[in-house]
């Protein structure tokens, strides 16, 4: 009986890939363990091995095909001597059995968080040309451009140089800037964060990459005690111009120790700026601003967002100011605040709400600290309803802070209590269904909006 060979998931967040090359042809005999194809993911080129012995009966996805969804049948293997009956081999059937529900659509698959260029207002001060880039590429370009401009800027972290970045964000930097400025560290977060702080005291401009922000917990003493407080403790004499960056928040199916949002942790402390962009344009413009900033900046990226594409202004001196939120969709009935990956979910929720006759205004915070409360206040004065969203835990979260500040600034404009949509107050579970329950979904936003607006369907 024929065995289906499917597009494999080669990383926790991979949804699709490019079938770069077949290394075997139809009719070839293969043995378990033979490398049969090369697949390019957004992170790397990986080899696919045969998992059974047999003969390659039919290749269903050709060399060079882009956007092949995980789970798509890419070939059929038969036992030696067996004949292959093409009739029942419908790729769509196999796709329906794909392991990850989110990607169970035929190739080319839509990304999980499809960008919505039509809805995103252009950056007010940019009317020049743009190009389509992934968040990953935009971040890389931001670093490269700043490194070209300022000899003091260097990048340091685990696997940033020879490996080209654990998530490929630093791809190509080693080639252009050499090992002097793109530095692989040992696995030693506490040490290299402190070393980076010292280099910043020494007037360099370090960009310190954490493979994920979960590991920054090893280094948090230097981030808070050494980087954030020194300007104050020195009476303004000596600051710490440093960027700590890396993926933050929930990845996919990696459980509690690798899935957490640290926005409220770092935003809690005076002396730090905390940035968490959603779009590629903001990722680029804000990272450039962060590198130029004379203060320590925590730059929270999102692994799930790295592969998503947006329009990015084409100009190597284009930046986005830290501390300015952005209205990504205008509306009149309710304000929804979000940052990072939640912006995409908020926009999808706004679409659904529009169909129900509710006009939602979506604000991408972009910077968590200093918080652009003015933009939120202006919006709430208009809509009189507020729903705050974030992936992080609810207790002492960013949403709690916004709710409090809104009470301080414009309590009289609220027609209903502020609603929060957050991650659940539990460590992140591994099981697919529980993970989904733990994370804020579009339906949760809809429910919260209904409640805030006293519509049916509210809790």
């Amino acid at each position, binding site marked *: 009986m024929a065995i289906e060979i499917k597009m494999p998931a080669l990383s926790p967040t991979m949804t699709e890939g490019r079938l770069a090359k077949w290394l075997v042809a139809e009719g070839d005999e293969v043995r378990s363990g033979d490398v049969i194809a090369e697949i390019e993911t957004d992170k790397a080129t990986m080899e696919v091995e045969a998992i059974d012995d047999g003969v390659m009966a039919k290749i269903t996805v050709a060399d060079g095909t882009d956007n092949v969804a995980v789970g798509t049948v890419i070939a059929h293997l038969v036992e030696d001597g067996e004949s292959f009956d093409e009739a029942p081999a419908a790729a769509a059937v196999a796709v329906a059995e794909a392991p990850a529900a989110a990607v169970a659509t035929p190739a080319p698959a839509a990304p999980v968080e499809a960008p919505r260029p039509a809805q995103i207002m252009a950056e007010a001060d940019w009317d020049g040309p743009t190009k389509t880039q992934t968040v990953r590429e935009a971040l890389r370009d931001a670093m490269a451009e700043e490194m070209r401009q300022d000899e003091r800027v*260097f990048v340091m972290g685990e696997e940033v140089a020879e490996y080209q970045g654990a998530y490929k964000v630093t791809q190509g930097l080693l080639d252009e800037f050499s090992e*002097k400025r793109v*530095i692989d*560290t*040992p696995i*030693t977060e*506490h*040490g*290299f*964060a*402190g*070393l*980076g*702080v*010292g*280099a*910043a*005291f*020494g*007037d*360099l401009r370090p960009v310190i990459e954490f493979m994920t922000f979960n590991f920054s917990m090893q280094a948090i*003493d*230097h981030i808070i*005690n*050494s980087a954030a407080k*020194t*300007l*104050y*403790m*020195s*009476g*303004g*004499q*000596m*600051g710490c111009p440093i960027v700590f960056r890396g993926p933050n928040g929930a990845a996919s199916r990696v459980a509690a120790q690798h899935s957490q949002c640290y926005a409220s942790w770092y935003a809690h402390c*005076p*002396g730090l*700026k905390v940035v968490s962009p959603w779009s590629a344009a903001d990722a680029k413009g804000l990272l450039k601003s962060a590198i130029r*900033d*004379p*203060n320590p900046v925590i730059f929270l990226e999102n692994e799930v967002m790295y592969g998503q594409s947006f329009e990015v202004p084409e100009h190597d001196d284009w930046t986005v100011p*830290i501390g300015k939120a952005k209205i990504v969709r205008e509306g009149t009935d309710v304000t929804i605040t979000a940052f990072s990956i939640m912006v995409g979910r908020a926009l999808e929720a706004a679409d659904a709400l529009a169909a129900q006759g509710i006009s939602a205004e979506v604000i991408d915070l972009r910077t968590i600290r200093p918080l652009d409360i003015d933009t939120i206040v202006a919006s709430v004065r208009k809509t009189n309803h507020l729903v705050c969203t974030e992936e992080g835990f609810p207790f002492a979260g960013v949403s709690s802070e916004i709710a409090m500040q809104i009470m301080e600034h414009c309590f009289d404009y609220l027609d209903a209590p502020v609603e929060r949509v957050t991650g659940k107050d539990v460590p992140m579970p591994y099981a697919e269904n529980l993970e989904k329950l733990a994370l804020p979904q579009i339906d949760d936003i809809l429910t919260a909006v209904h409640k805030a607006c006293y519509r049916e369907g509210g809790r």
Partner: protein
Amino acid sequence: MAKSSSASADQSKKRGRPPKAATGKHLINDFPETDVLTQLYKDMLLIRRFEEKAGQLYGMGEIGGFCHLYIGQEAVVVGLQSVAEDGDSIVTSYRDHGHMLACGMDAGGVMAELTGREGGYSKGKGGSMHMFSREKNFYGGHGIVAAQVPIGAGLAFAHKYNNDGKVNMAYLGDGAVNQGQVYETFNMAALWKLPVIFVIENNQYGMGTAVTRAAAGQDLCDRGKAYGIPGAQVDGMDVLAVRAAGEVALAHCREGKGPYILEMKTYRYRGHSMSDPAKYRTREEVDSMRKQHDPIDQLRDLLVREGIDESALKVIDKEVKQVVTDATDFALTSPLPAADELYTDILVETA
């Protein structure tokens, strides 16, 4: 500044203890000229008198919080600074007043910071443990045990990055040597051949815990062996021994050979901080160190043997006393920081 002296072996014997750490081919007979010796004496005495005054002011309630005095350890930082070059950087822990004075920071500014006044180095916002002077290449003053070690390596990284030929001296105590980040730093410093000297000031006690109860293994100078970092143990009560060892270590770093460890065997006469009753050691132990190994007395004796006039030493004593008196006056008359300083210096303002 460091000089290689032509004094013969006989002479150096006559002149007291030869520098113990001066081994190998480097500057074995580093016996300084008299004016260098008197400067060392003056620098150490300034720290001693300054710290005694700080202790008094603490007792009077003029200095608050923690106050960690350097009395007894003066030879370490004075000896090393005397052979350092302009532009070499320093970073240390919270027992930092001596280091600041040895870097040439103003005694009044340091004392005013201790009293929490506007005229202090940090405008009264840092206190005893948190002072900095970029101008004097003093990078703190760090209150978290061992945090200064990777910071020092980072400063050394900047020296190397800028190819400026300078060296960082990162001071840590015998308590800090057990912190994990010290070894993370040893590893990176050795891998990348950073010009940093890890100066372990082994004053025998990490707060109330004797080093023998806290540190496994043998000598602390060997803690870098696994990383290939050379180490030397030095009589940290002998400023000349410190100088000689410092010259060897600085030359090593400047030649691009990577980090170096100096274990300074020293002793603090006072408690860990002002609030430490120091019940963990005997009065006799402290007295015997004071009477037999005091770094200032030893150097004073040597100067007298060298034939310096006692009256010249008295002039120095008087000058030092005046510096401390002026610093104290300033520290007690400088106003408290203005209330609106509460909200300044949190972030550097950007356009």
